[in-house]
């Protein structure tokens, strides 16, 4: 892997140059918090942040995405036909994405890119995008990435990993996409001997600053029905107000709804984020709702992330430990606590007591 040295000047000039070939997206502070937004010409990403308030998943997977348009105008030749809306996606680079959020796309890909079915909307955007990661020197107190299959300098899902230094950055080129971006930015100066070791040292130090953990080792082996019928769901779900904050802020939540919106005889079919927290998520046409109570819905969210996903893909939990749902839940439902309860439930053997 090639290691590069980028001083402040090369950084600023490099991004300006790269902006000729890429649409740049980076963290920008709006009012009180950071969001990932397209950078204006000459605008630099603002790295004075721990992480963005909401995840950058919208870069690949917009909350509202037109899939098709149609017309019922009988005089038109294309009446009654769904016409695909192809989103114009120029080569894009997300500059300063945290390793947890980049890893999240790898997990989400498992859903949108399967041997049988590929989601062209998600895949086109993902393939057009280069992920320039920013190692996390100061993780939040509520981050638990190191026990969620990730870490503050985790490389999976990144094309290039930056580490901030006093003079600027060191960069580790991880993929051909990362190489192409470095070339476009004119970042060519090789880092001196020992830089990779220094990067590893930074990563170790950052990992040492993580103070929050989850236990997941028993989640796979404990029978799903035992967890489903575990006695703690009433207590876990009590405070839940069934808003979508956890799922909408989560970088790994991928569920969507499809809606037609019409105006006169013209219409558009939209792909929209949806949330398993909403009663409407599972409401049947008959009026029956198989997840009719908040207990059902809260249990579904945690079982999906921490059990069904684990069993189906054997890739760990469907969570990268970014801590957003922990920080943003209006009523302090904490996935770390629930994960540990689920994981501990198997060990305690209480499962046997459930009829």
């Amino acid at each position, binding site marked *: 892997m090639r290691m590069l040295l980028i001083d402040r000047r090369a950084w600023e000039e490099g991004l300006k140059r790269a902006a000729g070939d890429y649409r740049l997206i980076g963290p920008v502070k709006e009012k009180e918090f950071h969001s990932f937004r397209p950078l204006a010409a000459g605008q630099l990403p603002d790295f004075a942040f721990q992480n963005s308030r909401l995840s950058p998943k919208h870069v690949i997977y917009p909350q509202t995405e037109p899939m098709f348009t149609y017309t019922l105008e009988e005089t038109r030749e294309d009446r009654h036909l769904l016409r695909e809306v192809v989103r114009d996606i120029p080569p894009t680079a997300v500059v300063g994405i945290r390793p947890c959020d980049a890893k999240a796309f790898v997990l989400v890909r498992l859903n949108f890119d399967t041997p049988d079915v590929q989601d062209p909307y998600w895949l086109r955007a993902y393939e057009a995008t280069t992920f320039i990661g920013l190692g996390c020197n100061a993780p939040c107190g509520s981050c638990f990435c190191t026990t969620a299959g990730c870490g503050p300098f985790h490389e999976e899902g990144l094309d290039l990993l930056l580490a901030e230094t006093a003079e600027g950055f060191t960069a580790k080129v991880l993929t051909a996409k990362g190489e192409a971006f470095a070339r476009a930015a004119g970042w060519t100066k090789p880092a001196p001997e020992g830089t990779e070791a220094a990067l590893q040292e930074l990563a170790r130090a950052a990992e040492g600053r993580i103070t929050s953990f989850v236990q997941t080792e028993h989640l796979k082996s404990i029978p799903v029905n035992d967890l489903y019928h575990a006695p703690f769901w009433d207590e876990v779900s009590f405070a839940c107000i069934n*808003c979508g904050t956890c799922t909408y802020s989560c970088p790994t939540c991928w569920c969507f709804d499809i809606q037609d*919106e019409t105006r006169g005889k013209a219409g558009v079919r939209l792909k929209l984020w949806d949330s398993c927290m909403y009663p409407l998520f599972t409401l049947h046409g008959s009026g029956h709702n198989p997840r009719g109570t908040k207990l059902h819905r809260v249990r579904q969210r945690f079982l999906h992330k921490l059990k069904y996903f684990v069993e189906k893909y054997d890739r760990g939990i469907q969570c990268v430990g970014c801590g957003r749902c922990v920080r943003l839940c209006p009523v302090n439902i904490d996935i770390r606590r629930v994960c540990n309860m689920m994981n501990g439930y198997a060990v305690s053997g209480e499962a046997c007591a459930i009829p």
Partner: protein
Amino acid sequence: MTSTTAILREIAARLLSSGAVEMVIGFRQGTIPMMNEPCFVRKPDEVGHLVWDSHCGINLANYLTDRKEKIGIVAKGCDSRNVVTHILENKIRREQLVVIGVPCRGMADKRKIAMKCPGEILRVSETATAITAEGEGFSRTFEKADVLQHNCSLCIHRNPVIYDELAGDLVEEQQGVDRYADVRAVEEMTPERRWKYFEDLLAPCIRCYACRNACPLCYCPTCFVDESRPQWVGKGQDPIDVRTFHFLRAYHCAGRCTDCGACERACPVGINMRLFTKKLEKDCRELFDWEAGLSLEARPALDQYRPNDPNDFIR
């Protein structure tokens, strides 16, 4: 442990032991700074979970809707007004409730405190009048009055309006508060400016519905935004749909909202949607001399016709 916490535990243990209630709804210690979690306790030996401090801003009346048990409900001033509203609207019966009133000095605004600190807050402690936030390399102490939720700083009903038990001495109510300066500022804008102001206000909305769901008034079995036959509102990020949701939700709260601030507190992106409900609260006060949730005897403004109701707006 604050003395309020100790008193709450004592009351809860007594009510549960005697069988006066089947459950007590209150708060337990949160897992992150400045957050507590609404919880229930059913056994006297579990009352040690209950806590009280300046981070109990969520309105617990929300957890009473259509429950069947006999419940002890911990209620600060605004919660108690929403308990009254719930009783008036038949969402719970008075006989089911033992209201454990908590005279309140206001809840802390976690965003305000975070913005005044130079780094991530890792620990928070408090005295009767001050809150101290600490993180790596810093410690800041604030006068509690300076970091209250906005609605709490304007509150004129800090004492519970109904209660069967009281967890502490009644507090002095704030006098001479100008509750509607922010609403007047919006009223004074030109329509164009106001429209732009609302556009900016609602631009960050992600339609998570935390504001609606944190609100004790929003208990409709199916909210109008979730209706599908017919579908009144689109579900995407179209600004018209976003505004329709916020404006209509506010109108559904007219004459019912107690300005408890749960909506604003719950919002993950910091939208002050209270501006809308406060405008309606102000109108109710000016037109009908009505404040929500103060009495079990009076019918709400929009629930009652009086021959002298103002009707100047009918032309």
